[in-house]
Each structure stands twice: as structure tokens, then as C-alpha cells.
């Protein structure tokens, strides 16, 4: 390209090198600058701001008063925070087991199919594309105490299931997790299915010749074959579990009596209902801290040679 320009106009050496510098160094940066500016303004700047505001007492409107680490000291003795943190751990445990098991089951059932595999994959994926408000309202209806699935079970001779799932101290958190999972597991299934389909079929043939049954095949061929995807999704689940918000907020708003409160819900309430923006920023910062711990576990495993 430069050769072509020289032949035509023969500009001076200095002009050429200025032009080269502009094309090679400035133009590429001009192309990324707009999106970088937008992202820094929306994500990075306020994230750094959060670090500052977490050290202040601030109602969100007036001036922020610097109070050092007082917010973090308050967190240490905040019973609501501790309770929400425990709920986040329950949430994490739920999402590390139930959706993974369901997705593994479905993917390993669909993977060997020669007919209908794509069709089932699409059907099971559909809940993932629905908005959270719709998913929540569908299940609120289905779990109605006197006309929903619980009532149906009671009518068919299974008493005890017709309870107010979202209004009960013991069940509110797990019910919200159940609804979130209904929308979520199909996504995991597709990821696992894609991974399973790239496991070489010779491995299955070899296992079969060795007399392996289906369970052995799953344990010794499928699971090792998809382990990079599996471990990666376990770690992502770990990160996302600390950020979960939509379903709990829409279904229970953290209630009743804080029984389904998550850290994200506390941030929301402190910032926008109790006007304690500084304290909210401090809670948000601890949430990122938990996510960062999980990311570092991920990095350590990688350094140890895990294929993630």
C-alpha cells in the first residue's frame, strides 16, 4: 500500500514516516477509543468510585463524608449481612448441584441420539431466553397455594405440598432458586452437550469392548472428556451465585422476614430505599471480593496445569 503511494506522489521521507505513524499507531486507537470511553465511563470509573464511596457516609444526594473503614466494621457485626451471606452460600450450593446434575443428565441422554437431538436441544433451551419477570410470574401462578401444583398433589393424595412456597420462611429461598434454575439449566445443558459431542467416539467403542455399562461410560469417558467445560462452568456458577438478584427480587424481595435476602438485594435496599449509598457501595465491594476469590482459584488451577 505504501509502495503504491510513493510511486504516485513521491512525498518526502518525513511526511511518509508521519503518515506511517498515523496509520499504524493512531488509526487503530481511534477505532477502539469510542467504545473504550463508553465502557470506562459506565463500568470502570464508577467501580473505582465505589471503592471511595465505601469509605464514606453518603445518602446519595449530599456530600459524602469520609469515615474510613467504619462501613466495613459495621458489616462485620451486621446480622442482616451475615444472614444474606449465608443465603448466598445456600444459593451457591444449590447451583453447584441441581442444575449441573440436570444438565449432565439431559446432555448425556441427548448426545448419543441420531434423531431428534437438535430438536430436544432447542426445546430445553427455550426457558433460557425468557425474561425473568415472565419466568417468575409463571411459577408464582403454578405454585399458588390453593390452585397450583401443590394443591393438585394434595388432591391426588400427596398432602403437605400445598404451601405458600414464596411466603414461607423455610421455603422462600429455595423456591426462588428453583425458579431461577428452571430458566438456567437448559443453557448449561447446551454447553455440556457441545462438549460431549466432541469426545471421540472411539473412546466409547473402546469402553464398550471392555464391557463397560452406561454408568461406567459416563464416569470414565464422558466426564473426563468434558471436564474443562464442567470445571469452567462450576467456577462461573461460583461467581454468578454471589451476584444473583433478579429472581429473588421479583419473587420475594428478600422476604418474608429476610429469609431469602441475598447480598445483591441488600445493596439495592440500602442504596435506593434506605439512602445509605456509602454502606451499599461497601457491600457491593465485598461481593466483588468474593467473586475475585473465585477468579483467583481459577487462575491458580490454571497455573497448576488444569485445562480450563
Amino acid at each position, binding site marked *: 500500500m505504501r509502495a503504491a503511494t510513493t510511486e504516485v506522489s513521491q512525498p518526502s521521507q518525513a511526511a511518509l514516516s508521519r503518515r506511517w505513524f498515523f496509520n499504524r499507531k493512531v488509526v487503530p486507537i481511534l477505532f477502539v477509543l469510542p467504545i473504550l470511553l463508553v465502557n470506562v465511563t459506565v463500568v470502570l470509573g464508577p467501580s473505582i468510585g465505589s471503592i471511595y464511596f465505601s469509605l464514606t457516609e453518603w445518602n446519595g444526594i449530599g456530600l459524602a463524608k469520609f469515615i474510613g473503614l467504619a462501613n466495613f466494621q459495621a458489616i462485620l457485626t451486621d446480622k442482616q449481612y451475615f444472614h444474606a451471606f449465608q443465603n448466598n452460600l445456600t444459593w451457591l450450593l444449590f447451583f453447584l448441584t441441581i442444575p449441573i446434575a440436570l444438565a449432565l443428565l439431559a446432555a448425556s441422554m441427548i448426545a448419543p441420539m441420531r434423531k431428534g437431538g437438535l430438536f430436544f436441544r432447542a426445546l430445553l433451551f427455550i426457558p433460557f431466553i425468557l425474561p425473568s419477570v415472565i419466568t417468575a410470574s409463571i411459577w408464582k401462578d*403454578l405454585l399458588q397455594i390453593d390452585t397450583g401444583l401443590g394443591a393438585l398433589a394434595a388432591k391426588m393424595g400427596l398432602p403437605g405440598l400445598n404451601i405458600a412456597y414464596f411466603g414461607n420462611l423455610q421455603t422462600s429461598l429455595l423456591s426462588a432458586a428453583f425458579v431461577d434454575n428452571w430458566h438456567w439449566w437448559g443453557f448449561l445443558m447446551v454447553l455440556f452437550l457441545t462438549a460431549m459431542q466432541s469426545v471421540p467416539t472411539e473412546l466409547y467403542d473402546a469402553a464398550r469392548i471392555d464391557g463397560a455399562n452406561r454408568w461406567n461410560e459416563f464416569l470414565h469417558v464422558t466426564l473426563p472428556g468434558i471436564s474443562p467445560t464442567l470445571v469452567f462452568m462450576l467456577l462461573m456458577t461460583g461467581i454468578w451465585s454471589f451476584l444473583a438478584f433478579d429472581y429473588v427480587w421479583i419473587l420475594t424481595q428478600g422476604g418474608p422476614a429476610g429469609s431469602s435476602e441475598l447480598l445483591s438485594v441488600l445493596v439495592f435496599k440500602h442504596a435506593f430505599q434506605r439512602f445509605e449509598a456509602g454502606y451499599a*457501595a461497601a457491600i457491593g465491594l465485598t461481593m466483588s471480593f468474593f467473586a475475585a476469590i473465585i477468579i483467583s482459584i481459577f487462575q491458580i488451577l490454571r497455573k497448576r496445569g488444569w485445562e480450563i
Partner: protein
Amino acid sequence: MRHKISSRRTNSLLPNYVIVMLLVVFAIGPLIILLFNSVKSPSDAGQNLLGFPREIVWSNFPRAWTIGLFGTTVPNSLILMGGTVAGTLSLGGMAAYSIAKLKMPGAGLLTMYMLVSSSLPVQLFLVPLFFMWRKLDLVNNLFGLIIIYVATNAPFAIFLLRAYMVQIPNDFEDAARVDGAGEWGVFSHVVVPLSWPAFLTVGLVVSLNVWNEFLLASVFLTKQELFTVVTSYYSFSSAYSGRDWGLTSAGAVIMIAPLLILFLFLQRRFIEGLTQGGLKG
């Protein structure tokens, strides 16, 4: 011998189909019930929430459209969607082009930054962002929310577009450059037309993200005339749920019907785009 193995294999797939069918009932059953409920009268739904409709009441749909304020919320959501898709595709596409094709100095650093930024939780930057946006008069402003959506969708868009552009042979661009095109010309007349499948995938995923987004929309748009379909449905369904199931179900069907129809036609692109986004983000 080989024949025997494969025939044994097809026979033994029957339990697979049974189990998958049960899972399909779990995944799709609730949607079928929603569809049934959307044409039930209030008394029918009240007594018979899980069964077939006894009579079909189409009027739930026009009622839900009016009471659910879809006449104002659908345009709002479409504006947000259009603006975000346009912003993300143009600005993200430019950045992807620079990283993939122009050997941008510091490309590795930028990719790293985008990775980090895509894994930062909304709760971390939400509070300062809200108060900054309020100072700038960008709260209760569709354009203000579009900027936020462009920023949060950018990392995914850049990763996916870059991955596609890297595969385009350089010969095409070089030919255009020899013909005297500048980088902008190469980008808009050569690389963008060649990468349209990736742009389409990103556009679909971003549209879906915006249409479904709840947390940011409920924080940044608090005036009723600016509600999106999702935030408006949230207040609509809490007002009518338990009283008029036909009405809320019809509203839900209005909201998800376009999604399901699009998904039906473009399901592979949807699934691939969304799962790639999940893996990267």
C-alpha cells in the same frame, strides 16, 4: 459384529428418549399452561389453573395490551433495543476490527481490560453510576440507559466479532487498500459486509439482553411513561396476579411471542451466540 453393536445401541436409546421427554415436559409444560391460561376467563382460571380452558376468551389480549400499557412500553423497549444494537455493533465492530486487523498497539491489554470489565458485578458500579447519571440528567432518559447497555454489552460483542474477523483472509482488505481505500473504507466496505453473520448473531443476543433486562431498567427508568415491557410487566403482574390470571398470562404471551417466533427461525444462531457469550462472559 459391528452391526450387532450398533443395533444394540439404537435399541437401548429408548430410555434416553423417555427421560428427555420428561425433561421437555418440565421445561415446556409451564409455557403450555401459560398459553392455556391466556385465553381463560377469570373464574375459569381461578378454579382451573392447570387444565384446558373451558371456553376461549380472546379479549384477554386486547385488555392486557391496554391495561399493561404495551402501547407505550413496546416502543420504549424497541428504542432501547435499536439504540443499543446500533451502538454496540458500530462501536464494538470498530474496536474488533482494530484488534483483529490493525495490529493495534496494546491489543492484549485492551482484551484483558474487557475481560475484567465483563466480569465486574453490576452491584459494584451501580450505586456511583446511578448518582453520576442523575447529575448528568441521564436518569429517566432512554438515551442514558442505552449508553449503559452499550457499555455492558461491549465486551461480548468485541470478543465475538473479533473471533470472526480474524478468520477473514487479509487479501480482501489489501486489495481495497491498493485501490486507495482508507482504514474506514476497508472497515465499512470490506470487513463489515464479510462479517455479517457475526454481526447478526451479536445483534440478536444484544436485542434479547436488552428486551429481557430488569435490574438496570428498573433503577434507571422510574417514570411510568418510560417503563420497558419488562419493568412494566413487573408492576402490572403484581397488581393483577391472583385476581385475573387470564389477563396477566395474556400479557406474558404478548411479551414472549416475538421472542419465541424469532427463536424458532434462528435457533442455531441464538443458541450459539448465547452460549459463546456465556463462555466468554
